[in-house]
Every structure is written in structure tokens, then in C-alpha cells.
């Protein structure tokens, strides 16, 4: 039952990724001119002429003389084997540029994910069970504030406070002594000494809405008859709340992962730009500004695919949690 459910969910990813790839390809194609015109302009800028023959050869190599469907096919089949095309900005394959930045991106996102969901759960429960108490109002207030503050603004404020009150620049991911060093436990610890700011900044906005969702759902569940049943059995209040309504209120809390994972990816772009993290976000912005479309497209494709990871996580957790999903 469970297995069939997963297979069904996995199969649904295929058309999803297909449509996404078309969207991304369209975006790559959208700017006027193609990769080579930009390239030529770039070369001319740096006074390096390029002869017509080389240009023709490249045009053929990249299939730019073919029809769009053929170009799409070339691009997508390249992606499948890890060939993301050439980044002229970096003068190397786009994949190798992406590859160097991908792990830290994933670390940032997964850490934030765990932070946001892990913190939102107890606070949301507290806020719902202690409805209309001082604690609840405090949580609600900060929740709204977090919701209303754009990521980059919060990041800027943190940076400002760092410089103003501690005299340190809180951006970046590594202290100077670890920059470029091989990985070690000390370096990981150093990484998290910097990363927590990013996690905090990125997590706050999502945390705020997660708390609201958890609170609202739990409030709904707390008034359901099965809670009264459990109470009538003689269960202790906290125990019954955790076993029954919380368990059921977790459903929407989990299924929202699929929708908030993309928000996390979005937020990570802006936050990383402000905090100067060597992750994919700033790279993408840079490549878009430079019209390095193969690189930008590749990153965009990876980011969109990451949302699939979010959907999968939420589906798996949901199926484990709720028998009704499995039996559906």
C-alpha cells in the first residue's frame, strides 16, 4: 500500500519536471539574442576578436542553428547527463561552477528547514493550547513581525547590529583561517558559527507562518469530539493533547512543506546575496545580470528540482503519519 503510494507520487514528478524544464528553457531563450551574441559582445569588450569560422563552429556545436525543439532536446538531454552547457562568465562548464556551490546551498536550506519546522512545532502548540494568554500574544506579535519583514531587510539589520555593537562583519560563511582549507570538524563548527545568522534570517519568515498554521490547525482540532473522548477516559491534559489533536494537526503542518520549500529556496537567494554566502543564489543573480543564461538556467532548473525534494519529504512524512492517506 505504502510502496504503491510512493511510486505514484514519484511518477507524478516526471510530468512536473518536464513542464518545469520547458519553463526554464523558455526563460533561457527569452532575452534577445542568443548565447553567442552575448559571447561576441563580451569578447569585443575585452578586445579579443573572434573569427567567423570559430563562430560558425560554435554555433553548430551548440546547435544554435537548429529549431527550438531540437535545441530544447539537446539542452534537456545534456542536463540528464550533467551537461549544463558552458558558462562564458567563468569560462568553464556551468556544472562545475554549480557543483562547487551546491553543497553549501543544501546545507543552508536543510538546516533552515529543520530549524523552522523544529521551532515552529512547540511554539505553535504552546500558542494554541494557551490561547489568549500573554505568551500567545507575544508569539503572535513576533509572528506578524516576522511575516512582515522581508528577508533581506532582516539580514541587513543583523549585519548592521553586528557592526554597530560587536564591531564584526557577520556575513560570509568562513573565518579567514578556514577559507580554502580542507574540511574538518573544526571547519564545520566554524561554518555553523557563521551560518546560524543565515538560518535565523531565512527561517524567521517561514517560522512565523508555520506557527500561525500550526496554531490555527491545533485550535480547530482542540474542539473536536475525540479530544473530549480522550479527556473522558481520564488522560492527563498534556498527554492527550500531544497524542491526539497535535498528531492530527501535524497533517497540514507537514503537507505545507511542499509549498514552503520553494519559499525557502526563494528566501535563500536574497538572504545569501545580502550576507555574501557562496551559495547558488548570488551566483544566479550574478549570471542573470551578466546574461550568462546557461549557468542561470542550470541553477534555476536545480532550484526547481529541489522543490520536488520538498514535495517528496512532505508526501513521505504524511503517508507515515496518516493512515487515511495510505489507504486513499
Amino acid at each position: 500500500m505504502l510502496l504503491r503510494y510512493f511510486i505514484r507520487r514519484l511518477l507524478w514528478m516526471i510530468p512536473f519536471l518536464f513542464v518545469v524544464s520547458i519553463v526554464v528553457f523558455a526563460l533561457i531563450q527569452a532575452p534577445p539574442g542568443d548565447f553567442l551574441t552575448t559571447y561576441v559582445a563580451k569578447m569585443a569588450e575585452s578586445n579579443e576578436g573572434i573569427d567567423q569560422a570559430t563562430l560558425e563552429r560554435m554555433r553548430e556545436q551548440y546547435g544554435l542553428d537548429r529549431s527550438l525543439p531540437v535545441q530544447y532536446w539537446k539542452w534537456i538531454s545534456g542536463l540528464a547527463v550533467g551537461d549544463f552547457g558552458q558558462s562564458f562568465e567563468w569560462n568553464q562548464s556551468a556544472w562545475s561552477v554549480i557543483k562547487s556551490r551546491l553543497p553549501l546551498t543544501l546545507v543552508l536550506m536543510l538546516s533552515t528547514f529543520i530549524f523552522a519546522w523544529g521551532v515552529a512545532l512547540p511554539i505553535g502548540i504552546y500558542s494554541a493550547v494557551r490561547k489568549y494568554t500573554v505568551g500567545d500574544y507575544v508569539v503572535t506579535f513576533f509572528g506578524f513581525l516576522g511575516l512582515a519583514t522581508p528577508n533581506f531587510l532582516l539580514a541587513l539589520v543583523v549585519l548592521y547590529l553586528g557592526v554597530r555593537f560587536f564591531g564584526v562583519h557577520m556575513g560570509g560563511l568562513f573565518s579567514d583561517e578556514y577559507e580554502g582549507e580542507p574540511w574538518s570538524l573544526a571547519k564545520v563548527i566554524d561554518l555553523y558559527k557563521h551560518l546560524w545568522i543565515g538560518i535565523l534570517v531565512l527561517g524567521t519568515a517561514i517560522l512565523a507562518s508555520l506557527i500561525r498554521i500550526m496554531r490555527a490547525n491545533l485550535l480547530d482540532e482542540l474542539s473536536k469530539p475525540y479530544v473530549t473522548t480522550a479527556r473522558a477516559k481520564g488522560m492527563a491534559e498534556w498527554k492527550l493533547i500531544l497524542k491526539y489533536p497535535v498528531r492530527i494537526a501535524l497533517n497540514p503542518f507537514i503537507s505545507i512543506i511542499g509549498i514552503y520549500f520553494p519559499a525557502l529556496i526563494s528566501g535563500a537567494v536574497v538572504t545569501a546575496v545580502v550576507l555574501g554566502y557562496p551559495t547558488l543564489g548570488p551566483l544566479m543573480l550574478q549570471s542573470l545580470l551578466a546574461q550568462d543564461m546557461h549557468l542561470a538556467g542550470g541553477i534555476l532548473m536545480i532550484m526547481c528540482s529541489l522543490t520536488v525534494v520538498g514535495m517528496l519529504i512532505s508526501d513521505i512524512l504524511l503517508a507515515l503519519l496518516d493512515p487515511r492517506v495510505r489507504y486513499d
Partner: protein
Amino acid sequence: MLKTSVEDKVDARGDVILDIRDLATHFPMRNATVHAVDGVSLKLRRGKTTCVVGESGSGKSVTARSVLQIVDAPGRIVGGTIALRTGGGEVDIATLHPRSRAIRAIRGRDIAMIFQEPMSSLSPVHTIGNQIIESIRLHEKVTKAEARARAIELLAQVEIREPEKAIDQYTFEFSGGMRQRAMIAMALSCNPQVLIADEPTTALDVTTQAEILDLMRSLQEKHDMAIMFITHDMGVVAEIADDVVVMRHGKVVETGEVNEIFANPRHAYTRRLLESVVKLEQRAEIKRPEAEVLAEQTDPILSVKNVSVVFPLRGPKRKGPARGFRAVNDVSFDLRRGESLGIVGESGSGKTTLGRVLASVLSPSEGGIRFHENGGAGGDVGQLEGEALRNYRRQVRMVFQDPHGSLNPRMTVGQIVAEPLLNNGIARGDALRDRVYDLLEQVGLPAAVAERYPHAFSGGQRQRICIARAIALEPRVVICDEATSALDVSIRSQVLDLLIRLQERLDLSFVFIAHDIGVVRYFCDRVAVMRKGEIVEMGPASQVCDNPQHPYTKALISAVPHPDPTARSMHLRHRYEDAGVS
């Protein structure tokens, strides 16, 4: 309050285990305090059933919850005592803190409770076994394995088939009756001395209700429990009660031994309550005798021929001919001019679907309905289009079950009643207004209500507005889909009487869909009994209700409780054994 004499008698008649005196439970709201329970006194006796009866809002349910201190916030016990007398001595539950260890030890162990909604009263994401085992282990130090064995035994006791399998199932795999059995098993897990049942059979069909009541009775005998049974159904009271407590507006208006209450009600409210119930036990007095009416009514106005409705099943499509759920299966009958035809059945019998087909909300998948307009032959309803369909909808109107959902809350009553007149170009301007006033008056509402919105009306009044809308176009036929089942008993007969008078005046034919045999007997000339999409029996109302032929009808009719405690008959009822009965 009726003190001493009655109470002394109760004490004398048996062993009082729960003694509630002057209980007051209030709900402080923003503007005022709601006195939901206001000085209630009652006693529960070992091995006996006390029925607490009252209409909606009488405070009976809050009383029950007060006993376990599980009143929903912001409700709070503000006065009185609840003395629980067990072997260990006496405890006043009213003084315990709702979260204290002491009250938790009483809940489930000494006093257990079952609720109305068997679907939502159990957790949907935990197995039945998990929830029962938890109950056992909350109050007794036993291993998981022992508790599991006990749980299986409990499930067997409540007559759930294959308890070893059922214990690992989820509630959504159970039918309503099965869920209520599981609920009872859970309540019994620690052999409580008091069982509080809050309308436990209200959401169930009559045959299932009869079985659950049977089960509770036999378990009561076995465990010598006191049962506090909350209900609004006087029939159920007559069937199971030893003592009766009648409540109204948070107060007890009368208590007494069951036969005494039914034979000799002292309070005016009890009398009225009983009268309105007894009234529905026979054909309406204002109707002409059945035989006379049946002899007159001969020519059909609607002919239903071999109608089936098939809903396509969801899920993976299978090859082969389109299959689906047959909600209505090959139904044929005639509705005669001027008659009231009742269609009775339990949930899932297809009666509502049939009603929707008759009202042209749904098209039949097979078969057809012929409307004999003014003696001439009309077309088949399923195929009607355009003006013909509009004409049919003018002639055949509908009154819905839910008086809240069927009136647009954003339109005034006047606009609602005017809607069919406007849409069909019958009247406009002053003529429209006068017609609306006239219609409202016909259903017993003053013209002044036209400018009000539906939310300002009670259920019975709303149903009157629905009726005004239905008769606005001077139709030939009105389909009533459970039109009175959302109303309190006392209102029910008033609305039915209104329909009867309108029928006389306007020469209407009714199709009256109901699950309540009493209502059908009161209102209808002929009755069709539906089961699983088919009509199993059809005939004059008196014959079907008093002398049913089909075994299912026999089972259905005999499962209906009657408001007469001296002639308890439910245990003698016919049982219709068939796969799929809970």
C-alpha cells in the same frame, strides 16, 4: 422544585450511586452569562437507566459533561454537588479541579462516557485497539499484551465480528454502528459503575439504534451499571428508561419513574412534549380518513418508470462496461393526483437521490419520469430541455431538509419568495409584493417578515419560508426531502399540519421523503419503503406501518421505539439478516 417526596421515593427504590444536587454550570460570555445548567438535581441508581430528555438547548448535554468535569471552555461548574458513592466512600466531583489527578482517576474508571458522533469521537489516525488499550492502561497496571487480550475480549463482548482483526483497524474502516460499538467497548474497558451516554444513537439508523440499545441493556445487566442516557427521543425513553428527568432551559421540570411520567405527566411542558410525540403516532386528525382518500385518488400525476441512478465510482478505472454505485435501482411507481406519498428508508437507501431525480436536480441514468400535465401526457423528465424543463420545474417544486442551507443568507425573505415569481415572469412591482405577502400569510408568517434576512428566523420558520417559495408558482407536486427532520418534535407536527392544510387548499400532491416512520404515518396516504436503491414494499400507509409484509419492512417498523413504556416491544423486533448490516 419537586423535592422530598419524589427524591425519597427514588432513594427507596434502589442504591443511588450518583447524586447530583442543585448543579449549576454557567458559560460566561462577552456580554452575558449563559446559565446552561441552572440548579439541576437528579440521581442515578445502580443497574438502572435514567433518561435525561429535552429539546435542543435544554442543557441536558452540559449536565452530562459536568458530571465528568469536561464542559467545554468557558463553561464552569459554579454551584451544587455531584456525589459519587462508590465502595470506597463518597466524593463530591463538583469540588474537584477539572485537571486534577482525582477527577482523572474517576473518568473512565468509575464513570465512563460515550458520545453522539461515533465518527468524530474516535481518533481517525489511531487504531481501535490503540485507543481501547490506552483506556485500560490508564487505570490499571497491566502489560500491553494483557491489555490487548482484554481489548479483544471487549470487542467480542460488543459483538464486533472478528475482534482479532478489528483491533488493528482504523475507524474509517468501520460503519457507524460498528464505531459506536467500539466506543462502548472503550467505555467499558475498566468496568465503570456509571455509564453516561450522550445521544449515542441519534446519528444512527433505527435498526442500528435498536441493536445498540439492546447491547447496552445486556451489558448493563452483566455489569450492574447505572446508565445516564441523554436523548431527545421520547420513544427511546419509553423503551429503555427506569427513571426520567425532563429538562428545559437548563432546569429540571419534572423527574419520576418512567411509567408515571408517561401515564401521568404533571408539568405542562412534559405534557406538551408527550402530546406532540403521541400525535405523530397516528394519522393526522385533520386529514380525511385514509380509505376515503385512497378511493378518490386514482389518476397519476407523475409516473416513475424503471428509474436507475448510477454514480461513477472514483479511483482507478477498470475495463469493461461502465460500472458504478447504483444509488437508485430500477424503481417504478405512480404518484397520484392529490395524494401524499411517503418514501422511507435508512441512510444509503437512495431515497434522497430519488427525490433529487423527481425534482429534476439529477437526471436518471436509466428509465424515465413522465409528468401528466393536466391529464395530458408530458415528456420524460430526463430528456426535458429549455421551456419544457422550465415548465416542469414550475409544476414540481422542492422543499429541502436543511432550513439553514436552503435559504440564501444574503437575500431578504421577500426577495427569496419573490425569486421564482420573478424568474418565471409571473409578477413584478406592486403585484409581486402583494403576492409575496399573500404567500407569507399562507404559511403563517406576517407580511412584515419580508424585509428580514433568514438568519433572524428559527428552523421551523425558515421551513415555512421554504414552503412559501415552493408553492409560489402554484405547482402540482411538491417534493419534501426530510423537510421536518431538522426540527424539534413539537415544531414538526406544526409544519406537517401546515402542509396538510395547503394540500387541501391548493390541490397539491406530495412526495414526502423521510427516515422517520412516525412522520410518514402522520402525513402520508401511501408509503414506499426503499432499501439499497430499490423499493421493497409499497402500499397504503396504514398497511405498511401496521402490517408490513416484506421482512425488511418488518424489521424497520419493529425497530421504531414507541412512546409507551408499558408496551416495550423493541426486544421482540424482527431482525433482517443481510450482509452489510452493521
